[in-house]
């Protein structure tokens, strides 16, 4: 039989976010398929660098052979990964890169921002006032905003009103920030939320203030956005979908291969995103699908 790890550690930025449920499931299922006997530990780092570094120390001490990491910060985690590798552990990164990992698979977040905002711009026929509701400065969010700005840059008549407010990547945060922006700007044509909860929060705020003029886009393709798109009672028109399950599965497969000693690409593998809109939402396979 192939060489498989007996102990596997998985650490992710946080566990308390719906995105991470399919993400973790993808990694766990893949390990279970290849190595049914393996002992898998999953932990969340609550977006704390020290905590994640400690968790890797713990993994090393408890003798894991494979670590799958969704890093809190791509660069800052490098020394910990170096230590793990020095201990002979294979490290796979998913969703966020981690400097020094053997393999990396992540969503093309720049692209995710690009296609969502391009769609918004096209819907506005290349002209209008837009806002970007930013999020915490983690690489995925930064990339999406970069992508979005790239897209808008192609339209000289698109005017970005605001891009420096933190919607905390949550409904609550998106809601509060959007309320403020709605008061500040009497007319907004489009909103890009750094993730789906942000977009949903913005939508609720606009709905409550009866502001009909805008369209909204997010990133994730999360079940609640899917439900909203299907219901039609929303200003959300699009979301760049990610497939966390497949992403994690792919990363884990590659990491298992690296563990067996097979050569793997050192460059990050970027997974394309697809735009989910009201038109194609019927055929979209969401996060909550049975696998």
């Amino acid at each position, binding site marked *: 039989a192939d060489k498989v790890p007996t102990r596997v550690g998985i650490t992710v930025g*946080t*566990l*308390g*976010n*719906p995105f*991470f*449920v399919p993400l973790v499931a993808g990694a766990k299922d893949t390990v279970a398929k290849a190595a049914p006997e393996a002992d898998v530990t999953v932990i969340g780092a609550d977006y704390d660098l020290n905590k994640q570094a400690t968790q890797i120390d713990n993994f090393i001490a408890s003798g894991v052979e494979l670590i799958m990491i969704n890093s809190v910060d791509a660069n800052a985690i490098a020394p910990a990964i170096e230590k793990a590798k020095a201990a002979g552990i294979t490290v796979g990164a998913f969703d966020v890169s981690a400097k020094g990992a053997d393999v990396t698979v992540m969503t093309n977040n720049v692209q995710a921002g690009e296609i969502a905002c391009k769609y918004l711009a096209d819907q506005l026929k290349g002209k209008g006032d837009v806002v970007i509701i*930013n999020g915490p400065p983690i690489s995925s969010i930064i990339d999406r905003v970069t992508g979005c700005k790239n897209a808008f840059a192609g339209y000289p008549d698109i005017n970005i009103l*605001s891009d*420096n*407010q*933190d919607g905390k990547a*949550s*409904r*609550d945060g998106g*809601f*509060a*920030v959007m*309320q*403020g*922006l709605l*008061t*500040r700007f009497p007319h907004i044509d489009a909103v890009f939320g750094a993730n789906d*909860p942000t977009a*949903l*929060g913005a939508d*609720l705020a606009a*709905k*409550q*203030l009866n502001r009909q003029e805008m369209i909204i886009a997010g990133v994730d393709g*999360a*079940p*609640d956005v899917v*439900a*909203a798109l299907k*219901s039609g*009672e929303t200003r959300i028109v699009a979301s760049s979908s990610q497939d966390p399950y497949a992403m994690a599965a792919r990363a884990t497969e590659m990491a298992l291969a690296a563990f067996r000693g097979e050569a793997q690409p050192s460059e990050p593998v970027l997974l394309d995103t697809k735009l989910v809109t009201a038109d194609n939402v019927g055929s979209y396979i969401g996060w*909550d699908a049975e696998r």
Partner: protein
Amino acid sequence: MLPVLILLCIGFELLSGRFATFTNLSIVMQQAAINTTLAAGMTFVILTGGIDLSVGSIVAASAMVSVMGSLIPGWGYIGIPAGLAVGLACGLVNGLLVAVVKLPPFIATLGSLTAVRGFARLIGNDTTVFNTAMPFAFLGNGSLFGVPWLVIIAFAGIVVSWLILRRTVLGTFIYAIGGNEDAARLAGIRVTAVLTFVYAISGLFAGLGGVMSAARLYAANGLQVGQSYELDAIAAVILGGTSFVGGIGSIWGTLVGALIIAVLSNGLILIGVSDIWQYIVKGLVIIAAVALDRYHRSRG
């Protein structure tokens, strides 16, 4: 602190020109609503010289249960009592830990902060539960004669708290325990029962906050809802002049404190201060506000 609040409002109006519109003021009050509700309960606790760190987690648990209850076909309104019940239950446990087991309030409620957060995540299995057809959505987004329901609820909470604290015997007991617990005991007051009540009501108000959050967002998430709300609630109480020493303070102060926090958050967005600078300015304004208040009072 009322002058500070008024000063802030005037300042933001001058800087943005859009602060003092009816819509925006109603938004500010809506944003303050949940925190006001939590802070009302927290006032009871702090008046006895205690603290309740668990309110943020209780909001999350209650919101989860409330949304899940709202999904029951035909019985969606059950989400409201269900959410309140969760809050009350958690509060009662806190109260028993503090009053009967005699744990330090900080530790007892720090324990519940952690455990209840875990419970909130557990029941939704770490996903977001949502209900696009929330039956009691009007509570979160509707209004009555132009006044948002959220604001009405929060204000009602304040009024009820005021009645209890200032017009009932129980209120006197709460102040007495905060002022001199031994004296209260010697006067034959059931200190254990009063302390339990105080944490229970804080839990109940937090449960109400959870229901408000559910009605407002149509959704809940065990980890993301209510994170560090306890700090904001405590800050509102202390900004409002209630002292950690116990026995000193008023519920109206708490209302003003909660409004100051909401006005700050809203106003800084309105005048377009970037996120990072919002942190810095907010911190400095809180310090300056209390310092000003001190100075003002020491002269008055």
